[in-house]
């Protein structure tokens, strides 16, 4: 009977508990992460009484936390995924708009700048048009800066975000560890019954954690969760936690990396982190921010380099050579900025590496890594990070600087103690978008004009025309002086198919160039390129003919051959391999004693990489005749008698030859005879006379042999045709000297002079004394030069021209030998050697009188092309000179404007194509991130739904439960009432 009471009470208690739980569910219906609890009743053990088992009521068996471990895991994973894509999409969208917007994008900047350039090209003499160009170029620079500033700002922002998130992760880790401990304790003290609220709390923390980063949960037996992030890094083990924090990146101080501290060990886990906001931010950095910065930087570099190169081929409004339009991409500071040393490199911090951009159009947008893997301290590897390809494995030579070229850059190790374990990162283009800046500031500095201008002489009889010329290299010697061409060129046709190119510094007196460019071939009917192409060739020129100390005497009846006096020379021809820098010498060429220039040139031409030509020049002057003539003066050239008297039926000369032989013999007479002689014409001999000097040229380079027969007083002087110029040194300025007046060098002064002799260097002398007449003055110079240490044969002949310029020639006088014999002389020629690129010549010691001991090659290239086409006549002339006052010229501007559509980037895209591609890539990534975000959001909602569906509180359900338990409670209460009635009845019975 007492049982009924107990049963009732048990019921009451049980329902009360159920109502409490239900109430708890209802009040927590809105609590995030709350798992509803369900009560389960169990019948108490029955008792055996009066032969039957009678039950003893109900009690609460357990309060079950309705919770599905797998659904929760799913929810955590989806949370990480969604946050990952969300973080990526949000950041990428910002960059997306920045690049494409017409107010901030680079494209309109490019359009405006090139539009202004075209306007300036239309009207090059207008300074305002150039001003507009400069301001639009500045506008382009500003756009680059604005975008790159914004990108770097974003970098700073995400740095901050990463720091905050890392802090939060650590805080949550701490809280989870604590909860683990509490749960453990609570479970233990409750004999293994789990404390639902604590579990819910921990789940909430885990979900929050998964918003930040992907987590991996491993549960231990006693309900302890161990949390792992990244690639197995243990964030929480039991009740211990490890810290996650951010610090300056080991490789790049401008960005932070994620570090994991376990005990005393700090690990950089940036690459291991994935998922969650942190993973999304890191993905953004790798997939959007860095590539965009790199591409933008590369575009800036390419624009700078290509526009600078073209701009420097032009001249500006003031006629000066164009400077860099944008700042030089290889300023020292920029070169060092491109390399970053890993912070973990061993001390001392003294390593210096520079990266010079050799050709921006070949750059990639990847970053590079240099590692020193060991085991020694000088082997290093260069790896390209975009595809991981190992580009080079090299060893430092130990001598600085040490360079290596990859992908358009030159990596230069300049100093420092490199060692095993060193690491460096190269960002060739990352920071360059900030570096784009305009170098020129004034409108006059815009170089729109081309430096050269061509002219057709008025007197031309042919109809040949010359084009406007094109410059490809302004660093040659022709443009070494500002505002002029040194020297300007005169192209003179010596026949319809041959022309000479001459130095036209003095238009009244054009002289051959050095090295000479004579007798070039011209083909009428096609467009001829007049000047040799720049193939990297160099020219070496020999000294020229050697004047002997005296003529060779040939006794009558004998035959003596004079020699040209060239000693044997040992010529080495070397080839330097451009790839590895090694030099190889060919077999030494030994020129025979007294070989003619032609023979030497032919021998040289047989060698690889060498082409040589020869020409012999001599000058005759000062023809004297004996006061008492007895013999006829006879002069023979190369065996051909020139002073013979022939009858009317002669066939030795053309009909225009002078018949009468003058006495003394004159240069004009000899010149006419030589030019009219068939035999000499066949030998390639030409002669010129200006009345005072006879110049004889052998176009093939054979020796020129002269023989003089006559009285002892018959003579003439011979020189090798080269005038040596005497220049004033020192500060005394002179009255112009002339040949007719004397001068007093004792007043004013000191009067110092110098002259250069190939092979003897510069020789100085001083003029002293007073000279009364012009002749004395000339003698004074002669003496001074003779005593100056100048080594020569023959006499010095000094000449002062109308402008007061002093020149001299060493001359050998040849006289007749009377009846006993004749005097002969042979003069050798000059050899011009053109060596192909990478070839050079050197002379094995001892050098003699053919080439300079250390021959210096002059570059053959002019730096510009000109073309002539049409039919030219003998005497037609064209000039090429500096484009002075060419303010209406915009040829260089046209070339610069053409850069807009030229495929400058890797030979495949133009500036705007490259920019458009960059915008497209960012757009694609953003679009993909947005799609992924949307789809993962749907998945997230679904898994949230699934979890809610299982563990969420349904108020209606709870309301129904309330009713149910209340009824049950009332019913149990009734049972107690009945028990009490029974008891009362029982007690009343016994009263």
């Amino acid at each position, binding site marked *: 009977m007492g049982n009924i009471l107990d049963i009732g009470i048990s019921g009451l208690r049980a329902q009360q508990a159920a109502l409490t739980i239900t109430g708890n569910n209802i009040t927590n219906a809105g609590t995030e992460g709350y798992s509803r609890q369900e009560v389960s009743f169990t019948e108490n053990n029955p008792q055996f009484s009066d032969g039957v088992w009678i039950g003893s009521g109900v009690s609460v068996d357990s309060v079950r936390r309705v919770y599905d471990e797998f659904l929760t895991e799913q929810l955590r994973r989806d949370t990480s995924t969604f946050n990952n894509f969300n973080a990526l999409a949000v950041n990428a969208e910002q960059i997306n708009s920045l690049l*494409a917007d017409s107010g901030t994008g680079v494209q309109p900047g490019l359009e405006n700048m090139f539009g202004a350039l075209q306007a300036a090209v239309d009207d090059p*003499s207008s300074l305002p048009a150039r001003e507009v160009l400069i301001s639009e170029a500045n506008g382009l620079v500003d756009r680059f800066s604005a975008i790159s500033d914004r990108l770097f700002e974003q970098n700073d922002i995400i740095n901050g975000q990463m720091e905050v998130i890392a802090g939060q992760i650590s805080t949550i880790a701490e809280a989870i560890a604590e909860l683990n401990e509490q749960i453990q304790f609570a479970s233990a003290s409750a004999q293994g019954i789990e404390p639902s609220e604590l579990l819910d709390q921990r789940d909430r923390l885990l979900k929050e954690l998964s918003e930040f980063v992907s987590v991996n949960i491993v549960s231990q037996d006693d309900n302890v969760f161990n949390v792992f992030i990244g690639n197995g890094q243990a964030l929480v083990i039991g009740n211990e936690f490890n810290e996650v924090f951010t610090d300056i990146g080991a490789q790049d101080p401008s960005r932070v990396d994620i570090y994991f501290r376990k005990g005393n060990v700090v690990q950089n886990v940036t690459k291991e982190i994935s998922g969650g906001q942190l993973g999304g931010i890191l993905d953004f950095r790798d997939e959007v921010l860095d590539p965009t910065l790199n591409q933008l930087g590369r575009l800036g570099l390419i624009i700078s380099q290509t526009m600078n190169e073209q701009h420097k081929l032009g001249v500006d409004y003031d006629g000066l050579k164009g400077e860099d339009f944008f700042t030089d991409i290889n300023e020292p500071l920029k070169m060092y900025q491109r390399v970053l040393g890993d912070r973990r490199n061993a001390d001392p911090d003294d390593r210096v590496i520079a990266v010079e951009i050799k050709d921006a159009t070949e750059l990639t947008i990847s970053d590079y890594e240099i590692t020193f893997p060991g085991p020694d301290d000088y082997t290093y590897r260069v790896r390209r990070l975009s595809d991981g390809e190992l580009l080079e494995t090299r060893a430092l030579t130990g001598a600085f600087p040490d360079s290596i070229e990859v992908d358009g850059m030159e990596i230069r190790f300049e100093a420092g103690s490199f060692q095993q374990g060193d690491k460096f990162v190269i960002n060739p283009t990352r920071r360059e978008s900030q570096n784009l800046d305009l170098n020129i500031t004034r409108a006059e500095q815009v170089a729109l004009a081309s430096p050269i*201008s061509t*002219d057709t002489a008025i007197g031309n009889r042919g109809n040949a025309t010359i084009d406007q010329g094109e410059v490809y290299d302004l660093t040659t010697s022709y443009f070494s002086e500002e505002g002029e061409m040194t020297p300007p060129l005169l192209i003179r046709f010596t026949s319809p198919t041959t022309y000479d190119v001459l130095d036209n510094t003095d*238009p009244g007196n054009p002289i051959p160039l050095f090295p000479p460019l004579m007798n070039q071939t011209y083909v009428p009917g096609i467009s001829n390129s007049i000047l040799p192409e720049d193939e990297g060739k160099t020219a070496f020129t020999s000294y020229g003919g050697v004047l002997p100390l005296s003529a060779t005497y040939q006794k009558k009846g004998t035959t003596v051959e004079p020699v040209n006096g060239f000693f044997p020379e040992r010529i080495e021809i070397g080839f330097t391999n451009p790839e590895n820098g090694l030099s190889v010498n060919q077999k030494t060429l030994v020129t025979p004693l007294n070989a003619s220039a032609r023979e030497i040139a032919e021998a040289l031409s047989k060698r690889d990489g060498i082409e040589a030509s020869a020409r012999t020049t001599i000058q005759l002057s000062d023809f004297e005749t004996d006061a008492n003539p007895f013999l006829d003066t006879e002069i023979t050239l190369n065996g051909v008698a020139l002073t013979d008297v022939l009858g009317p039926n002669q066939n030795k000369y053309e009909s225009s030859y002078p018949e009468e032989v003058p006495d003394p013999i004159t240069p004009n007479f000899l010149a006419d005879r030589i030019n009219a002689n068939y035999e000499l014409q066949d030998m390639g001999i030409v002669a010129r006379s200006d009345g005072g000097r006879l110049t004889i040229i052998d176009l093939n380079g054979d020796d020129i042999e002269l023989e003089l027969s006559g009285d002892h007083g018959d003579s003439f002087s011979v020189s090798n045709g080269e005038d040596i110029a005497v220049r004033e040194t020192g500060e005394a300025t002179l009255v112009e000297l*002339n040949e007719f007046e004397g001068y007093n060098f004792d007043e004013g002064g000191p009067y110092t002079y110098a002259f250069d002799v190939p092979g003897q260097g510069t020789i100085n002398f001083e003029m002293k004394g007073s000279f009364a007449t012009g002749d004395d003055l000339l003698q004074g110079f002669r003496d001074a030069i003779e005593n100056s240490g100048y080594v020569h044969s023959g006499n010095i002949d000094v000449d002062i021209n109308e402008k007061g310029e002093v020149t001299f020639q060493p001359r050998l006088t040849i006289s007749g030998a009377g009846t006993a014999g004749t005097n002969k002389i042979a003069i050798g020629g000059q050899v011009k050697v053109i060596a192909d690129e990478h070839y050079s010549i050197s002379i094995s010691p001892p050098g003699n009188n053919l080439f300079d001991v250390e021959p210096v090659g002059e570059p053959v290239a002019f730096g510009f092309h000109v073309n002539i086409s049409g039919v030219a006549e003998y005497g037609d002339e064209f000039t090429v000179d500096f484009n002075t*006052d060419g303010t*209406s010229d915009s040829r260089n501007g046209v070339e610069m404007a053409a850069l807009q559509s030229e495929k400058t980037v890797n030979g495949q895209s133009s500036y705007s194509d490259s920019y*458009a591609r960059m915008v497209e890539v960012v757009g694609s990534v953003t679009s993909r991130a947005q799609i992924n975000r949307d789809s993962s959001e749907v998945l997230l909602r679904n898994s949230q739904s699934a979890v809610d569906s299982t563990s*969420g509180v349904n108020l209606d359900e709870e309301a129904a439960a309330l009713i149910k338990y209340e009824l049950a409670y009332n019913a149990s209460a009734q049972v107690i009432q009945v028990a009490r009635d029974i008891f009362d009845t029982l007690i009343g019975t016994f009263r």
Partner: protein
Amino acid sequence: MRIATLQSFNLGLNAILDNQAAVNTTQQQVSSGRRVLTPADDPIASTKILQLQQDLAQREQYERNMTAAENRLNLEEATLSSITDALTRIQELTVNAGSGTLTITDRQAISAEISQLENQLGSLFNTKDPNGEYIFAGFKGASAPFQRQDNGRYEYQGDEGQRYLALGDTTRVATGDNGKKLFVDVRAAKNTFTTAVNPLNEGSTQVNAGFVVDEEAYAEFYPDDLIITFNSEAAVTPAGPNYTIRRASDGRVVDGMAQREYKNGGEIVVAGISLKISGDPEPGDEVLAKSSPKQSITDTVYRLRQGLDSLEDNPEDALTLDILIEDTLTNLANAQTSVSEVRSQLGARLNVVENQRSLSADVKLVSQEVLSELSDVDFAEAVSRLSLQTFLLEAAQQSYTTISRLSLFNQL
């Protein structure tokens, strides 16, 4: 499927939020008229849009170039037309002057009128465009190409440059012609010569145009050039300026003219030509007489005037005058030919510009259409989409409030 209370509220809320976002996007499209708001909306179309925009910008630039080219070419044409008229008038006067009944005074009167025309020609040759650039000066457009010397002779100081403008990616047109080609390189009736001073001269030497006095002598000398060099003053006694005349080919002295005394403005006759040098020469200065088959228009008129001013009424001079008139008429006819050749070239160039303009306009139209297709929104579709989405949004909002009122607790 069991729905938790919180879950049902979240579901309803999410639906509202999603619809709101969709309405927002559509509303932005409709109000801006653009379909592609950010490159992410359609990455491939964005690239194409950027390229088309650049293409259109370039076309506009070319159109500006075309206008500039047309303006310059029209100016040149008008100037050349005036020059042709002036030349025609000079030709008429020349014919008049050749009439045998005129005296020297009559001829001098004609010469005066020709002088006026010469001035007019001079200023036409030095025409400037509206920007102040001399159109016939080649690349040296900042200074007048035809400069008048003290002795009345015009010298060409410009160069032979010609400027081109781009009208399309591969089309260029020349926007000017230089004065040398037009007015200086004119075929002469006979072989003649041009005089010039060496630009490196230190003294102030000037030379007149000179003329041929002895045809046979000059024909022998032609095509060689003369170089007159001034020697040091001490070369003659008494000391004074003196000169030597050599030929350019080999430097030989011509006609024995060595160390001749210099008279300012005096006539020098050598190798069949006569010329006058004036001014103060320094030793080393050079005067050049280059043989040429061409003669500039200004030199032709100059020589004509000199002849009309100085030739007397005697038979000898009459013969010289006849030859001069004949040569002048030939030269002027050649000049007219030279000018009209260029005028027809101008016409051809203007045609090129015209054609290019219409071609460019067509291409531009096509590009604009494509651009519009890619980037503009289809209003009909967008507006109807907007109304659908607004409807959905309203429905979501109403159903939310309705469902939230349903609860068993209301029945308790």
